[in-house]
């Protein structure tokens, strides 16, 4: 049953709050920014129709506090809540709380979030749906003996991962049994401290892997895919530059990969926008499912650029109960898009965070360039949240043209007053690794280390 959203509470901050407000406005909705006391001057608050303060700067007392967000939704008489990414976006109890309050949660059903949010259960669901998974421990390992047995079966090196983890957090590598003996208790303690759940599981560590992910959209009945993104260029498991489509896939592998993603999303009757992450072993042509993110992703704009589909609008529509307007045969990839994440970090000082006031801001424009950002000149970036300042996205008809356009846009862009990773991206755009597209998930860290 379609139930139009009139007033949307945006329960997030930064560039994604801005992105959601824009989509809401395009659909004729009112957007309310729920914000902490540190974000009173944010761009999201300035662009929203109304704003409501939900707590002090620290996210645990504001953006991560389900009760504070629900109070804000009731107080402002919102009829829907968009959680963005991070914070409460993959908290099944929060999603259920929103629904219990009689509001629309812009995302999948709480039960879907719960299943896919537990990495071990997600793996099992994938396997039942016929999707290849990375060899692993088939669920949490209760103790060291079980971990040793599982690791022997999987083969070293193995990854020790928090069952409730995500975003690259709570992952450790063990190259042999001695390292496993040492890392397991540490990983369990870390998982308990970070996620409140000491459960960890093991997975084969594919050493020369590419990180490829498939975007899906569902309405609870039908699911379509919007092809893949290549996200291998990472530092400390944080993505730095993404591109779509992946330069590593053959058309045949692409079709199989995307079909498998649809199969899995269909198996959980997926609603909204979701992303299935895979490891891709280019030498063997194997793709292996890692996990599903049941939310919008940071790098969604490159998919929007190559497919012409507005993912955030589609999320809002399907959340309101509208059936998916897209058929699979309507979706095609045209050209190549790249995204550079410009962070407030000093690459010359070990990527030290650099909050502070933006004294001057010059954003690039022209054909094929898109900026999603929280920044404006004079804005003081608070120290309490992540360091993403802007996502610079460039689209062109083919990969060389996209590289040239991104290089041109990076040259135009200026952010003064804080340290940013703009210079790093300018160098990266000229690197042999990126130009030849011969990279895997370990390439960027090596490249960073070899930079003068």
């Amino acid at each position, binding site marked *: 049953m379609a139930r139009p959203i009139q007033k949307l509470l945006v329960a997030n901050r930064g560039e994604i709050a801005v992105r959601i407000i824009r989509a809401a406005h395009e659909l004729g909705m009112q957007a309310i920014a729920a914000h902490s006391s*540190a974000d009173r001057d944010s761009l999201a608050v300035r662009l929203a129709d109304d704003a409501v303060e939900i707590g*002090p*700067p*620290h996210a645990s007392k504001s953006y991560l506090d389900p009760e504070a967000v629900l109070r804000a939704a009731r107080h402002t008489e919102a009829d829907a809540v968009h959680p963005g990414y991070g914070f409460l976006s993959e908290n099944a109890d929060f999603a259920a709380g929103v629904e219990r309050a009689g509001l629309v949660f812009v995302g999948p059903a709480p039960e879907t979030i719960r299943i896919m949010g537990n990495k071990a259960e997600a793996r099992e669901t994938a396997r039942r749906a016929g999707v290849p998974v990375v060899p692993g421990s088939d669920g949490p390992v209760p103790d060291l003996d079980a971990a040793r047995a599982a690791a022997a079966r999987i083969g070293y090196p193995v990854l020790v991962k928090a069952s409730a983890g995500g975003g690259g957090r709570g992952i450790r590598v063990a190259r042999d049994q001695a390292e496993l003996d040492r890392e397991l208790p540490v990983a369990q303690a870390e998982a308990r*401290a970070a996620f409140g759940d000491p459960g960890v599981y093991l997975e084969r560590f594919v050493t020369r892997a590419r990180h490829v992910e498939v975007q899906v959209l569902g309405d609870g009945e039908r699911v379509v895919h919007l092809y893949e993104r290549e996200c291998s260029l990472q530092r400390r498991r944080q993505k730095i530059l993404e591109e779509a489509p992946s330069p590593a896939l053959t058309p045949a592998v692409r079709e199989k990969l995307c079909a498998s993603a649809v199969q899995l999303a269909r198996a959980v009757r997926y609603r909204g926008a979701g992303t299935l992450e895979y490891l891709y072993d280019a030498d063997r042509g194997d793709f292996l499912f890692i996990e599903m993110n049941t939310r919008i992703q940071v790098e969604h704009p490159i998919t929007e650029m190559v497919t012409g589909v507005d993912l955030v609008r589609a999320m809002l529509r399907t959340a309101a109960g509208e059936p998916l307007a897209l058929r699979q045969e309507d979706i095609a990839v045209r050209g190549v898009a790249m995204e550079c994440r410009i962070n*407030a*970090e000093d690459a010359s000082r070990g990527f*030290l*965070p650099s*909050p*502070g006031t933006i004294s001057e801001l010059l954003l690039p424009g022209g054909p094929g360039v898109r900026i999603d950002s929280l920044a404006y000149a004079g804005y003081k970036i608070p*120290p*309490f*949240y*992540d*360091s993403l300042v802007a996502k610079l996205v460039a689209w062109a008809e083919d990969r060389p043209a996209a590289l040239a356009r991104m290089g041109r846009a990076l040259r135009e862009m200026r952010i003064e007053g804080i340290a940013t990773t703009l210079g790093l991206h300018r160098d990266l755009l000229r690197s042999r690794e990126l130009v030849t597209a011969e990279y895997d998930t370990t390439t960027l860290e090596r490249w960073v280390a070899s930079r003068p």
Partner: protein
Amino acid sequence: MAQREIQSPLPGTFYRKPAPDRPPFVKEGDTVKVGDVIGLVEVMKMFNEVHADQAGKVVRFLAENEAAVEAGQPLLVVEG
């Protein structure tokens, strides 16, 4: 005896303990040496140790655990 302040090197969230369920790094009445860890400042999700740049006995803390602090803001007073 002279009283001096130890300041936060960075803006962010100040923590007096290494973890919520652990005792504080130092408490009032403790003696600190130059280089001792007196707390953590979380800035953009990164944790940075705050080291004492003066030695002495801790007289009082000026910033609470989990307080939002600015760079250069005094965190505690030492005497000695």
